[in-house]
């Protein structure tokens, strides 16, 4: 086992925080990665970057919103020859709150990409890990899921859903000591997804958050705030009485 490369499959491998997580992983370990995403060109450019950094990469084009795609079969087949050490779910989308609220179709699509799709994938991944009795399932949630706030509750509620879903799975699989389920909760991060937002002191670089994600994946706590001080901030925001919260524009 010790000479075997670290074997991981990544859903939504083209997100900025995820790329940094994989770069941090490739710096420290011999890795064998399966990168899964929607855009073949983007997947390939991420794969080339990671290959330059020493990772062995294959790519798989799949639409997570389409239940008929073959990722599940490929993951299951792969696990038989080489068990997964990590299944990482990283896709998501930060919608423009106001326009999305006025368009039921795009509202449904946003909830789907941020909750339904990762939940469906997480459930399937957990089964694979149970079968091999080994491995970590890590999913990107967000601090936005810790309390519904006027400025981004579409994204926040979907991330809250994922948080609860994973908490429930941890409970369900608590007897399986060799399986870890981790919710990664990045705070505000400087990525293309947030490029239009003004940057305050609370923003972290994608590189810092990615490096800490990799640390968290290894130590595998149930929930990891990235960086850790977001736990403190979100505790305050959670206990803030509504009468006060409603006076803010958070």
């Amino acid at each position, binding site marked *: 086992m010790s000479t075997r490369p670290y074997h991981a499959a990544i859903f939504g491998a083209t997100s*900025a925080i995820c790329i940094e997580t994989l770069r941090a992983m490739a710096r420290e370990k011999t890795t064998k990665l399966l990168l899964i995403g929607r855009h073949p060109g983007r997947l390939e450019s991420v794969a080339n970057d990671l290959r330059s950094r020493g990772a062995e990469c294959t790519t798989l084009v799949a639409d997570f919103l389409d239940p008929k795609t073959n990722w599940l079969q490929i993951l299951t087949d792969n696990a038989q020859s080489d068990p997964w050490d990590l299944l990482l779910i990283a896709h998501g989308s930060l919608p*423009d709150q106001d326009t999305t609220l006025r368009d039921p179709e795009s509202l449904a699509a946003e909830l789907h990409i941020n909750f339904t799709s990762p939940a469906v994938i997480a459930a399937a991944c957990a089964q694979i890990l149970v079968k091999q009795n080994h491995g970590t399932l890590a999913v990107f949630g967000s601090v936005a899921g810790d309390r519904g706030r006027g400025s981004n509750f579409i994204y926040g509620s979907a991330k809250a859903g994922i948080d609860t879903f994973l908490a429930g799975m941890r409970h369900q699989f608590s007897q399986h000591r060799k399986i870890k389920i981790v919710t990664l909760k990045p705070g505000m991060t400087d990525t293309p997804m947030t490029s239009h937002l003004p940057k305050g002191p609370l923003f972290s670089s994608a590189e810092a958050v990615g490096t800490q994600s990799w640390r968290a994946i290894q130590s595998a706590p149930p929930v990891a705030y990235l960086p850790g001080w977001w736990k403190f901030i979100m505790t305050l925001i959670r206990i803030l009485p509504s009468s006060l919260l409603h006076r803010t524009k958070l």
Partner: protein
Amino acid sequence: MTATKTFHSWGKLRPATAKLLAPAWIPNDLPGTGPFLAYGLGRSYGDSCLLDGGTMIETRFLDRIQHFDPQTGILRAESGITLAAILRFCVPKGWFLPTTPGTSQITLGGAIANDVHGKNHHSAGCFGNHVRMLDLLRSDGSRHTLRPGDPMLAATIGGLGLTGLITSAEIQLVPIRSAHLDVELTRFCGLDEFMEISASSSETWEHTVAWIDCVASGNSLGRGIFIRGKWSDRGDLSTHRTARLTAPFEMPGFTLNRFTVQAFNTLYYRRFLGKTKTLHQHYAPFFYPLDGVNEWNRIYGKPGFYQYQCVTPTAAGTEPMKQILTKIAASGQASFLAVLKTFGDVPSPGMLSFPQPGITLALDFPQRDPATRDLFLQLDEIVRACHGRLYPAKDARMNARDFSQTYPQLESFKSFLDTKFSSDFWKRMTSATTPS
């Protein structure tokens, strides 16, 4: 979603408000009508990286390595990757940048568009001398793969981002055995002694530069420390750390005055006893002494600052530079960040590349207009008379006539312009009614 954003250059003199494009992937075309300008990390000092009222394309998310050959040291990457990120990648493998400016916080695309130079200019030439290939996206949607010999490459190297969007580039790295350098510091007094040490160093020392005290006058006029280094055989291949310190806020204007600067310079000049001192130094403090403090430009406070960088040609001798130093010392306006270096005769690859054989001086001035601009006008006269020139990447106030007369390839350059690209610098240089 088109957002607008306020952009600053490093000198923080005049912000620009522009529509923002922040592509996460190399785009196939440029949406909208423009005018466009690429923006990396905003380390240009003046207005060459700004386009007020236009569309600015932030390139920093285009940071992926496309290919690296560990045998030959050839690296191909997207244009928004920083020199710092390249070093973190290649130093442990025993490779280094072929040449580097005094900060690693710039993008690959920015290094090419400004054809930056470094301490080894006398042997390595400019950054553009080591570009093997680059991809350019023009506003008409056409893509061009440019190689040495292609005139469009010569226009794009040092072309201030005006020929289109550089999307990726291939450069040749150089092998190193250690991440450390053997360094020698030598005190000098006056430009003649600087020239002597410089001439005797150029054959045997790969990297040379000098810090010069531009505040001291009288007997101390032109005192400085000559810094020369070569790659060491001793030491590991460790990379630099990310900066731990950040300048917390914009300091009040009075922090930097004649007395604090003089005190700093005296301390710096007296930092070792005797004539010389040898050091075994990591590349980070040697090449990037200021990268240890994030946002150090805040020490100049709200009014911002200028950097004046000129070159006086070899043929003119040392007299013009002596006049410049005397004038600056007499003005009492200079700050402590002053750099003196001799450029070698490696031909610059770009039509608008700044370096030419001679002596270059770069130093910061807190913005105290009109006094600061008045001083620059006097310095311009000296530079003009000796057929020297100024560096667009540092400039916020150059005279358009000086620009057109001192960059002889400007007319050929213009035929390679992307008509939908522009910059505040370019508008200043080409508008019909230019104030001097």
